[in-house]
């Protein structure tokens, strides 16, 4: 178990190193940042001075080394457009994105599992067919369109929910949360549904397929032959066996939810990292882009690691390498 965790951990570090190289390479290939900072009538001497103050005239390896060491300390340089450290910009935006991602994932998991189980157990009912149809829509409609439709319906037509922003936020130390105010809750509903809808349909279809598969297995038949209640069979024996793939998908999707919250955050003007990133792209603010890249990959790698470890919690067969006793 320890060796397994350690091995996975080393692999994760390898991945992060590779991403670090790519992030650094962006500085070299995405145009000259000095041009983004200065205006047209800046003299060459001033340009050189800025270049020097940003360390852009050092050899590449020196720059990489410096970038790498700074990145380890969560220093990602200074944003070209805001003239503020990237790390504090990101830290300021992180809570908004994480809260949105967590709400979206929780919504996706709860609704997805419930709908999946229902449509597996009551396959021929009208409601189950409706779920299937809805899931098709959820999978095929692009996120931004769903967001805009929701805004049109609930914000513009009905006026129940705000169409943009995060509502009032409360500061808890460095963390700002919108989940403690009514306006914050109102503001997060639509973005969370928009962001989670795709994952929800994915989880629903997965749970349904897995559940149908598990219900055909011998141990379910044997559980029925033992006279266990339908409830115990479906929600104990069957559901637990469907959870391994669901954990994988939900876990990996959590990374995607954070990474792809860019679109949702843009549609709803959600003050998170995604919005920051979009603005950075528009302004060729490379330090933010590079830091965002590093952070998203760190999140992905961490989630992968956690999912791998979670497997062993759910499935005892993965716990011991030898396992089989005589």
């Amino acid at each position, binding site marked *: 178990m320890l060796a397994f965790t350690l091995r996975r951990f080393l692999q994760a570090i390898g991945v992060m190193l590779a991403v670090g190289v790519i992030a650094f390479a962006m500085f070299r290939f995405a145009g000259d940042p000095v041009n983004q900072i200065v205006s047209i009538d800046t003299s060459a001497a001033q340009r050189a001075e800025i270049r020097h103050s940003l360390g852009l005239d050092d050899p590449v390896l020196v720059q990489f080394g410096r970038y790498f060491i700074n990145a380890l300390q969560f220093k990602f340089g200074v944003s070209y457009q805001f003239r503020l450290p990237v790390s504090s910009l990101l830290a300021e935006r992180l809570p908004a994105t994480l809260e949105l991602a967590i709400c979206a994932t929780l919504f996706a998991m709860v609704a997805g599992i419930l709908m999946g189980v229902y449509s597996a157990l009551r396959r021929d009912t009208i409601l189950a067919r409706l779920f299937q149809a809805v899931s098709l829509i959820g999978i095929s409609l692009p996120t931004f369109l769903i967001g805009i439709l929701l805004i049109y319906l609930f914000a513009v037509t009905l006026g129940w929910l705000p169409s943009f922003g995060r509502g009032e936020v409360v500061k808890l130390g460095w963390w700002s949360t919108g989940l403690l105010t009514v306006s914050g809750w109102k503001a997060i509903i639509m973005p969370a549904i928009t962001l989670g809808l795709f994952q929800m349909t994915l989880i629903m279809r997965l749970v349904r397929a897995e559940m149908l598969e598990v219900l055909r*297995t*011998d*141990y379910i*038949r*044997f*559980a*029925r*032959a*033992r*006279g*266990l*209640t*339908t409830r*115990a069979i479906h929600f*104990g*024996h069957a559901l*637990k*066996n469907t959870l391994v793939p669901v954990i994988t998908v939900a876990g990996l999707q959590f990374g995607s939810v954070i990474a792809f919250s860019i679109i949702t955050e843009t549609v709803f003007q959600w003050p998170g990292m995604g919005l920051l990133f979009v603005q950075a792209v528009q302004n060729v603010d490379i330090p933010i882009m590079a830091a965002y890249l590093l952070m998203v990959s760190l999140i992905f790698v961490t989630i992968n690691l956690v999912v791998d470890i979670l497997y062993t919690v*759910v*499935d*005892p*067969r993965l716990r011991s390498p030898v*396992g*089989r*006793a*005589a």
Partner: protein
Amino acid sequence: MTQPVLSVRNLEVEFVTRRATLRAINGVSFDIAKGEVLGVVGESGAGKSVTGLAVIGLIDPPGRISAGEIELSGTRIDHLPPEEIRRVRGKRIGMIFQDPLTSLNPLYRIGDQIIETIRTHTNLSESAARRRAIDLLAEVGIPAPEKRIDGYPHEFSGGMRQRVVIALAICAEPELIIADEPTTALDVSVQAQIIALIKRLGRDHGTAVMLVTHDMGVIAETCDRVAVMYSGRIAEIGPVQEVVRNPLHPYARGLMGAIPTLAGEDKRLVQIPGSMPRLSAIPPGCPFNPRCAFAFDRCRIERPEPIRRGTQSVACHLFEPAKETAA
């Protein structure tokens, strides 16, 4: 004669498909007395397993019991509402399936699976159920049961897992155990132990056992009586010695002739030509007639009814009282 534990009368099981209604079981009748082991043999698809599943009420749609009666100790259990037949399953009828490797839920400790079953059928407390589970594991021959009870299925070998499955099947002291090919998936050396265990449990607890298998050796060793099934019907049923030594039905004769013996003079094993008809193409009359060396006109038209011959009962026109000489 006392009342049989299990009494099946004219059982019919149908599978309704879009194309046609297939009759998997067609007029099967048999009894099993207390403490008796009835073997059910036949080729794959003869309806052995379906008969077992019908008794325990596990025929899933599109299959259904279309006719006949199943009585357990005098009460009818076919056509019970789902909740009531569930209470019968596991409590009054225990079932053992073919593959112990897949019969146990891999994610639950075996102890939890046994305790769960015990507590479903009795009102024992958690700790009392656990003590009973340990006793059961000891009874089915699991060494160090108080330790192994917390093991997961993958930590047990095939034979040990089948012992756990048997413990699960008997944990509520059922009147009847249905064992559906309990040894087919096991090593030969383990098969004998499992068969001996089932036999011992049946004797110790006075449980009736319905042993479905295609292994004639197992039948000869274990059973009191044997039913030979062919194409959804019982071709012949009787005490195991009689049926093995002196089979009457031409199919049973073929089956017994196909058992290799160690004392074998260098004789070729007798084969039955052809194969069992598919459910969609059962010939009229006796289903065995196309493969039967003794078939005559009547066999192709009229379905033979079971005829008593001493302790045996055989469904074959050759044994009509009037035509007895023909045998």
